[in-house]
């Protein structure tokens, strides 16, 4: 009987597995195969072993993009998760018009990235943007938010965090609501201060959820593209070009699909390495408990 149920289970799950194979694994496999060739769109495919990887790794623009990507990921994930935790803690305390505040905090997440980037591009416009108008009115003067080589990456990060932070808030706020009240009552009876409650009760109880949020945000922000493309297209002078934009440039501007595939494969490996550390750490803790 058990075997029949198990077999039926496989049959039921099979279409889904087949779908994943077709639309995720096969293209990924093809991309990995292309990375060992010198394929340019329209040209014949010739295998070149690791030559494409050598070319990618020798390109200073790849390393510049990788360095920027690292800075971007560290900054935005810290801000998203840190800020998200702070906002969810504030919301957890409860306010008047609580539902309104929750809706306002979550609103940016409901906007499409392209629309959000277009709105911010207008807000930060040097000549006609409201942000610079306000700054000029108070005597600060206009700032080149999106075209100054030092300021552009910061501006892009701000826009990205603004839109992505609600994701952390949703998850963490839901987790906070679900935490057992008895533990807080016990801590309170033991004379714990608010900070001690947070440090020794909330944080440990939240850590599995926090870990999931961090892993999700790491994976998503590592391949950030839409916001940056819409705001700066990787400029000025490649100063906001991350690995995903570098990949796009190689693939869809230079038609060098081999290079683009190699960069994509390297990004996949890097993402797996980073996230596997967190997953391994989480398992280690679980088994330690």
């Amino acid at each position, binding site marked *: 009987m058990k075997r029949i149920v198990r077999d039926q289970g496989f049959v039921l799950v099979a279409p889904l597995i087949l779908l994943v194979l077709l639309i995720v694994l096969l293209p990924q496999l093809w991309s990995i195969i292309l990375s060992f060739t010198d394929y340019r769109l329209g040209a014949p495919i010739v295998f070149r072993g690791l030559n494409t990887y050598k070319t990618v790794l020798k390109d200073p623009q790849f390393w510049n993009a990788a360095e920027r990507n690292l800075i971007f990921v560290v900054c935005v994930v810290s801000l998203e998760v840190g800020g998200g935790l702070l906002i969810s803690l504030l919301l957890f305390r409860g306010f008047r018009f609580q539902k309104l505040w929750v809706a306002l905090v979550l609103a940016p997440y409901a906007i499409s990235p392209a629309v959000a980037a277009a709105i911010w591009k207008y807000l930060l416009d*040097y000549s006609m943007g409201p942000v610079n108008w306000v700054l000029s009115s108070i005597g600060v003067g206009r700032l080149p938010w*999106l075209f100054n080589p030092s300021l552009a990456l910061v501006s892009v990060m701000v826009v990205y965090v603004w839109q992505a932070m609600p994701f952390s808030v949703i998850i963490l706020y839901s987790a906070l609501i679900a935490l057992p009240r008895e533990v807080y009552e016990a801590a309170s009876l033991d004379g714990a201060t608010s900070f001690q409650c947070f440090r020794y009760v909330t944080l440990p109880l939240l850590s599995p959820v926090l870990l999931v949020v961090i892993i999700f945000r790491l994976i998503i922000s590592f391949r950030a593209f839409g916001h940056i493309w819409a705001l700066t297209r990787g400029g*000025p002078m490649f100063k906001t070009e991350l690995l995903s934009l570098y990949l796009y440039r190689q693939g869809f501007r230079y038609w060098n699909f081999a290079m683009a595939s190699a960069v994509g494969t390297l990004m996949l490996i890097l993402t797996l390495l980073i996230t596997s550390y967190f997953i391994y750490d989480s398992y280690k803790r679980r088994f330690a408990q």
Partner: protein
Amino acid sequence: MRKIAFLLATVVVVLCGTLAIGQGQKELVVWCVAVHRDVAIGAYGAKIDVVSPFEKEHGVSIRWVTIPWTGMEEKVLRELALPQTEADIIFIVDDWARPDVLSKLMPLDDFMTAAPIEDFEGLAPGMVSALIYEGKLRGIPVRANVQVLHYNKAIFAKRGIEHAPRTFEELIEAAKAATYVREDGARVYGLGLKVPEDIIGVIRAFGGDVMTPDYQVVCDSPQAIAAIKALRDLYNAGALPPDFFMLQAADYERLVGQGLVAMVFFGDNYNLRFNDPTRVSPEVAGQMDVVPIPASETTGLELAPCKVAFWAMAIPNNAPRENRDLAWEFIRYLASPQVQLSMALNGNGPTRAAVLADPQYQVGVPYAWASALAINVARRLWPPFAQVSQAYDILAHEAVLAITGQKDPEQAMKDAAEALRALLR
């Protein structure tokens, strides 16, 4: 059951009938963007349908496969690499006229010998030469837009600039004079500069170039450096938008339309858009005029060798064998002087100077005189080579560093030249 059988029988009869009719008439498949079809069938402008007479004469039906411009290069590159394509004719833009594309197009010399194009010499020689690969002609230019200088007469009058610039030095002075803050607080910039194509245009206006037609990299020449220095002076004077290197053509269209940029280099046909009251502010509509881009006094030339963007018709190597002669016949027909004139009256940019100078054309098109002068000296920005997009990026990067004062112009142009030479190797 009977009803279903009847329905199926009807469908089969209709399908067979359709196929029989379809097989009775030959079909030529043309891959293009919508505008190519529209100017041929007379969708607007003078509304002269030049396609129907051809179809009647040759008993053929033209099937236009229109492809969105943004995805066309990718689609064409993929299609040309296949063993066979359905396309008998494809349109290619000048930027694609590089070895990896031209090598996949049929040499047209034998067709030309058998059935030459009427007044072939009348086609713009710069465009024709760009379509020659390994000594063979691979396409016939049928649509072109030369770049001219668009200027706002109202801003010129307000700032006391008496006439359109006749030399590049006058253009620089006009750009500085036209830079000011409007009564409503908005800043007006003297000159818009698209990167890097307009930078190449300015370098040419100073008698230099970036890459010669025989692939010599010359962007570190004294003329090119003088051009970059002139642009740096304009940037320092505030006559270029501070974010000029981030602005796309669409951004400049918006700025011109709001009267925030006094002069821009754009294709000649933009003159109609810039004066269209439904697209631009009432203060700008009717105020935009054109002149050919002037050359620097130092060159001894009157006009700068401006950019020309053009589309050519070609027969892919993998096109259906049986339709090739007919495909050539259609290309030959569309490139002929009379059909070029008809299409020009429909809104097509002609590839023949004679059409630009034709009185019929000049009546309806206010910029025709400037285009006719500019087309004689116009040429494409680069000679054909596979890494042209990388070349664009290299030049843009170094030139912007120099213009914005982040790098010495001599050094920047030297670095650009080295990188471009390395790219060609």
